[in-house]
């Protein structure tokens, strides 16, 4: 359950984001659609608790996240929100398995190796557990990033341009994976994209 009111964000006095109202029930699917520089990444960061907006309130899972202390917000994000970025940002010095476990580590949760391996099996990378990110293809790394994002069973799954660099088939695979993982954990899925191909999979589309 996500609720946003009178949201406004400005960089150096220039307003880049304005959103009067947004409500999304638990398990909902939202597509944030817009061109590059339209503020969709900014909105995603605000929803993830990464960027305090200039004005407005943001509630995630019933919690007004910007009323929390920063430390508490970090922890909330770690445990309740899964993030997938366009640039995948796997930690290069850690193995694929450790990259998935890093989500639990960063959130201060128990590092459940069995769950991490199960997730890797789900994204079809069971045999790559001990490989390093640089040994994987882009598509494989994206699947690791998704596994990592759902490691802590988040209530909200946020993805920024997850399909931008992929051709049609692969784009659909990634979308299916995100939808499947969100369904499995009954997570709210929010995807920010300029990619028209995946629009149909979402019941709500927000144009920015």
């Amino acid at each position, binding site marked *: 359950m996500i609720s946003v009111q009178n949201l406004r964000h400005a960089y150096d006095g220039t307003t880049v984001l304005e959103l009067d109202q947004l409500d999304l029930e638990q398990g909902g699917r939202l597509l944030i659609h817009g061109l590059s520089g339209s503020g969709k990444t900014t909105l995603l960061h605000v929803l993830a608790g990464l960027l305090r907006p200039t004005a407005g309130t943001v509630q995630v899972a019933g919690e007004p996240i910007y009323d929390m202390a920063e430390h508490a917000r*970090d922890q909330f994000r770690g445990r309740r929100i899964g993030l997938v970025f366009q640039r995948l940002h796997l930690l290069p010095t850690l193995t694929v398995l450790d990259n998935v476990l890093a989500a639990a580590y*960063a959130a201060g949760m128990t590092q459940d190796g069995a769950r991490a391996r199960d997730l890797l099996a789900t994204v079809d990378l069971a045999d790559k557990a001990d490989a390093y990110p640089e040994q994987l293809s882009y598509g494989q790394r994206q699947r690791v990033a998704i596994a990592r994002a759902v490691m802590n069973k988040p209530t909200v799954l946020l993805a920024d341009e997850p399909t931008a660099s992929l051709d049609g088939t692969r784009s659909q695979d990634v979308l299916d994976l995100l939808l499947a993982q969100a369904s499995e954990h009954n997570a709210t899925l929010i995807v920010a994209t300029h990619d028209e191909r995946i629009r149909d999979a979402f019941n709500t589309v927000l144009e920015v």
Partner: protein
Amino acid sequence: MKSLPLSYLRRRPLGTVLNVLLLGLGIATIVVLLLLSRQVEENLTRDAEGINLVVGAKGSPLQLILSSIYHVDAPTGNIPVAEAQQIMTNPMVKKAIPLALGDNYRGYRIVGTTAAYPEHYGTAPAEGRLWDGTLEVTAGAQVAQELNMSIGDEVVSSHGFGDGDTHGDHPMSVVGILEPTGTVVDRLLLTSVETVWEVHGAHAHDDHEDGHHDDEHHQDGEHSHDDHGDDHSHDDDHHGDDHDHDEKHSHDEKHSHDEEHHDDHSHDDDHHDDGEHSHDDHDDEPTVAASAPPPGPPGLQIPGMISSEDYDPSAEYTSLLIEYATPMAAATLPRFINTQTNMQAAAPAFQTARLLGLLGFGLDAFRVFGFVLIAVAALSLFIGLYNALKDRTYDIAILRSMGASRGKVMQHVLTEGLLLALGGALLGLVIGHLAAEGLGQFLETAQGVSLTGATFVPEELLLVGLAVVVGAVAALLPAVLAYRTDISGVLARG
């Protein structure tokens, strides 16, 4: 999940090795200094323990201490037994150990002394016994070990402290081997004073037969009669006319004895020259004495104490090691000896402190070098961490996005710096101890100084502390940058 800081260090092995090595070398330099200076100080103190004063011929007080306690430098000369006995019987003296130096056996010095000497250093024969008659020696533990000596072995001493002439006609036999003490005694061969006199007397005659060893004699501070020339001119300076007669008397005695001695040999030209020289001094002296008034009260020295009948007038000690009977002696005895006799008194504690002060100057230079290395290591550590951090802002943003707090990412960077610092400290301690041991073994064979790397000083813990501080300081700015990372900005730039 493996440790992130460790994984980053492994990621750039060259930089890690360089930083650890730099810091390690800096720490090692200081460790070596600490270990060696501490041991040198301990050795110097241990060897001089219980010896309040050394009395010997006039000259450099440091040289007197070095030659009589540590057995390194050449002696300053010799002192007549009669004058020495005057000090030995002084009520302020609790214990006085006479030493007669002058020869060595394969680089190890032969010391003519009494049983009080090994006793002073708390050692006794581990095998055999102490010397008894003349031409018997008891070997220090290290000498015996290094030269593979056993009881009954013959020792042919060499003149002086290098490879001098050998006293082939006076072989000594080893009658005992002392227990090791960790002091200078371990590196000495002990015998009676009389043995040194006997071997030496013979040597002096040999010298005169050859007629060309006098110079070497002088340099080595041997039992040379020239010393008397100097001593007596000193006396005249101090005491003027009052004692001239007595001293001339004993001097004459001495010379008559020498001449008898030399008559047997019939080639005493050199010696006569020496004797005449000192006599000339006496003749010339009154004018000098008149122009320079005597500094001390003339009545203090008791002329009767120098009794020419009681001892062989050619016999001399090199020095006396003295323990005071009362702390009061420290105030009066050295001054008395220095101003009222031909001899000088030097306090080991003072001279050792002076020596350490001189050494300290050189050590300071090394210490500065060590700290410069550590400073460079700190800079290198900082640059390494700072550059690494720039490559890692995305990693930090990702960790933050996954729930890591600012404190946690800061802690990662600090941990990395501390791991490097501890690695450097550990390496430094290992290198330092190995180097000290290597240097110790080199010095042991070259100088007979025993130093080891297998010992620890508490200051090493301070060095580990210093390394930790260096690591923390070097990591501080990068850690603060990690703390301040603008996650959203970094991720958005993606």
